[in-house]
């Protein structure tokens, strides 16, 4: 079905290949997950299959990619569209029409399908993705998960034989992501489509796939069943394997069955001997907040339109030294809540104090030294010609002396390992590097409280680890908005759960995340049957289990 023969690709003006001598063969009906660190070449790999690379992006290729016997590099993408469908990362930027049925028809209209055939295919596509009820809805009013399902349905309608999905769930909350992935699995299962899915968060998909490809630095590092991971040198990988698989790799010789466990259920069985014989008796310390209040909210309400309240009756305090993970479904009010904290929006009702003073009493200069906020999209922050100027910018706004500006900038560039790029244009850097520049450009003013809005979205495991260890080491008080339960379990001391504008749970991470139905980490679910052997029921991370079982 798909054959890469010694395929290499160089983006225009690049001297290093983004894909380097790839040789791989994919058969009809296979379900593959493609993973690897940010900027490693996963998306480029997908785009080589439908000819977007090199036809859309330009650049130089050697070798070839054959898709059903057609040379994809010589065939314009719009000609490949009958064989290959593609769904992209951002649901916002791939829907063309205003209405769901028309959106699904868009591809078929381009291919001059008759009206009768389009009607039939729309029915089938709506049904396959289980969104018949949305057929007459306006696309801009759909949730992110619904939009992704519409994008999948519109790819399916032209009956492609191959479906490419480039991180389709990275913008979604866990529940929406789960439901989109179920649809993808069903399409592979029932319609027999060949599916190639790029994904960072493997725990959601790894157990469904037939094969896993790992691409790092443009090279194909692993090609095989995820169950055979024990033979690979996974220790050097920069991807986040599911926590249960990561744990199992430490005991690969003791695993009784033939394959690596990929789900909680499988790991409970495979690691039975290990987990029922813990070597050390431990109980986890629950870190309490300090007594110094930094932000206090009392019965705060907020509404954008003056009618429907986005935040309702919010009362809580942020204490000095708190490491808070703010979690909840999409549109639960998380981002609005953090915007209130640095005065970007003002409460409709209620009392909000920052270090005992109203936010309106602070000058902008003073305010940004109290609360720094880094938005999810680093591109919103970056506009200067060099990384160094970007970081200096805040300090110059604070009218700091030149010598001090230089010193502080130098220090933070080194801390964030971006000193070597100080003279580079920020937009030329990779996603992870840009994120670090954005972070440095806010942290350089040393705010008392640091707010991060979805900082790990699209970040690979390796970068997440680095960010967490930096925050734990250097930042004073941090509030991190995140969907990523595993990140929250590793980073936070305190977890606040929001639902439909109200706080539904607020407490120590061990109390909030343990045994929670929707928001508990894999490891916590894994250890529950073994608590009777002495594993604490509030164990949350791989490292903690290792400490217990020795």
């Amino acid at each position: 079905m798909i054959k890469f023969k010694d395929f290499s690709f160089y983006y225009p003006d690049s001297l290093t290949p983004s894909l380097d001598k790839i040789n791989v063969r994919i058969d009809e009906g296979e379900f593959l997950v493609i993973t690897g660190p940010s900027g490693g070449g996963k998306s480029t790999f997908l785009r080589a299959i439908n000819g977007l690379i090199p036809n859309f992006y330009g650049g130089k290729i050697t070798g070839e990619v054959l898709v059903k016997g057609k040379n994809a590099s010589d065939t314009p993408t719009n000609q490949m569209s009958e064989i290959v469908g593609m769904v992209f990362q951002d649901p916002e930027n791939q829907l063309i029409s205003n209405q769901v049925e028309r959106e699904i028809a868009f591809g078929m209209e381009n291919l001059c399908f008759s009206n009768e055939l389009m009607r039939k295919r729309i029915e089938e596509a709506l049904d396959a993705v289980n969104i018949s009820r949305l057929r007459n809805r306006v696309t801009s009013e759909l949730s992110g998960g619904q939009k992704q399902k519409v994008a999948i349905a519109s790819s399916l309608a032209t009956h492609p034989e191959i479906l490419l999905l480039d991180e389709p769930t990275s913008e979604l909350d866990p529940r929406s992501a789960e439901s989109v992935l179920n649809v993808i699995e069903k399409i592979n299962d029932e319609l027999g489509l060949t599916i190639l899915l790029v994904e960072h968060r493997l725990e959601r998909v790894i157990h469904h796939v037939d094969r896993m490809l790992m691409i790092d630095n443009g090279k194909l590092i692993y090609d095989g069943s995820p169950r055979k991971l024990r033979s690979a040198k996974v220790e050097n990988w920069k991807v986040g394997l599911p926590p249960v698989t990561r744990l199992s790799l430490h005991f690969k010789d003791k695993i009784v069955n033939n394959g690596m466990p990929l789900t909680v259920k499988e790991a409970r069985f495979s690691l039975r001997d290990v987990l029922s014989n813990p070597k050390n008796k431990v109980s986890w310390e629950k870190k309490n907040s300090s007594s110094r209040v930094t932000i206090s909210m009392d019965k705060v309400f907020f509404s954008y339109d003056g009618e429907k309240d986005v935040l309702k009756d919010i009362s809580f305090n942020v204490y000095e030294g708190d490491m808070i993970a703010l979690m909840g479904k999409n549109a639960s009010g998380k981002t609005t809540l953090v915007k209130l904290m640095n005065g970007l929006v003002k409460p409709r009702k209620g009392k909000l104090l920052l270090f005992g003073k109203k936010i309106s009493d602070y000058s902008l200069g003073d305010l940004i030294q109290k609360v720094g906020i880094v938005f999810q999209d680093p591109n919103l922050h970056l506009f200067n010609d060099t990384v160094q100027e970007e970081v200096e910018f805040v300090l110059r706004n604070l009218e700091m002396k030149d010598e001090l500006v230089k010193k502080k900038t130098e220090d933070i560039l080194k801390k964030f390992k971006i000193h070597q790029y100080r003279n580079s244009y920020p937009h030329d850097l990779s996603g992870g590097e840009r994120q670090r520049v954005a972070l440095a450009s806010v942290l350089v003013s040393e705010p008392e409280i640091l707010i991060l809005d979805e900082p790990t979205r699209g970040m690979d495991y390796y970068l997440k680890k680095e960010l967490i260890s930096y925050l734990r080491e250097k930042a004073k008080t941090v509030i991190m908005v995140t969907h990523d339960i595993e990140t929250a379990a590793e980073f936070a001391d305190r977890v606040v759960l929001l639902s439909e504008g109200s706080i539904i749970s607020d407490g120590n991470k061990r109390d909030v995340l343990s045994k929670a139905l929707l928001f508990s980490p894999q490891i916590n679910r894994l250890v529950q049957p073994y608590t009777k052997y002495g594993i604490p029921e509030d164990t949350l991370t791989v490292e903690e289990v290792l400490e217990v079982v020795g």
Partner: protein
Amino acid sequence: MLELTYKRKRSVFHDTSPFLKITWLSSILFISIIFEHPIILLVLFLSSLFMAAISKIFLEWSRVMKLVVYFIPFVIMFNLVVNANGETVLWQLPFRIPIFGILNITLEELAFSLTMCIRIAAILGAFAVLNLTTDPDDLLRAVTKLRLPYRSVVVTSLSTKFVPVLFSDLKNVQEAQRSRGVDFSKGTLKQRIKKYGAVFFPLLSKSLDRSVQIAESMESRGFGKYEKRSFYNDTKLLPSEILLILVSIAPLVISLYMVSQGIGVFKFYQTIDPLIKSNSEAYYIITILLAQIFLLPLLKIKGLMAYD
């Protein structure tokens, strides 16, 4: 906030053919350009107003119309300076302005300015009705049928769809920059220009990223594979719609006839013409009025028949 984008609703004008909407708008647009007659322009303005009312978009439409009120002083000022005509002086400027001399405000200038404002209101009102009641996709289909190249039409339609997205990006960039201490109200001119760069460049980069992603998505779905494309739910014009289209262009046909006969010409200078100069002019104006108004009950009847 000014909302000029389409919102899905049900009304007789929302549900009607985009061709009819285009002919109705074109008719108003051309007649407003042909005539300077205050009564005819007022009839056209009222036509948009009634259409907004039966389309259940009066509130949004009236917000757009408020803009015209802001225009009035500018139109008057402009006319005062460039069009120093008219015999009936209402007020004289007590000082001399270099180059322009002593300026008089005349009744004729004032009448002309107000008539121009009605003209702007009529045109803007009709465009607002079209924008607020028509799905850009429908408009795209109709315009493509008029043999305009569909690739250009899709791009135009997409750009209107992304205007609200652009505003939301702008807000996000401003918030991000404010969080870095960018205070747009402070600093020298050079510093302020630099600060606006802090909004402009991220916005530009975001928009470019967005357009690349949309282009990728369109390419992947076969856009541009063939010279022509088919249309989903491509219904043919109903006889009742053809009749309505004829009614909607009837005022334009009458207007063109009037111009060919020299009827309906209205002069403001040096003295204002009487509003109605002859019986035949009155009859023609009444015919335009009736043709414009006739469309409304016809639409209502068609709507009732469709809903039944």
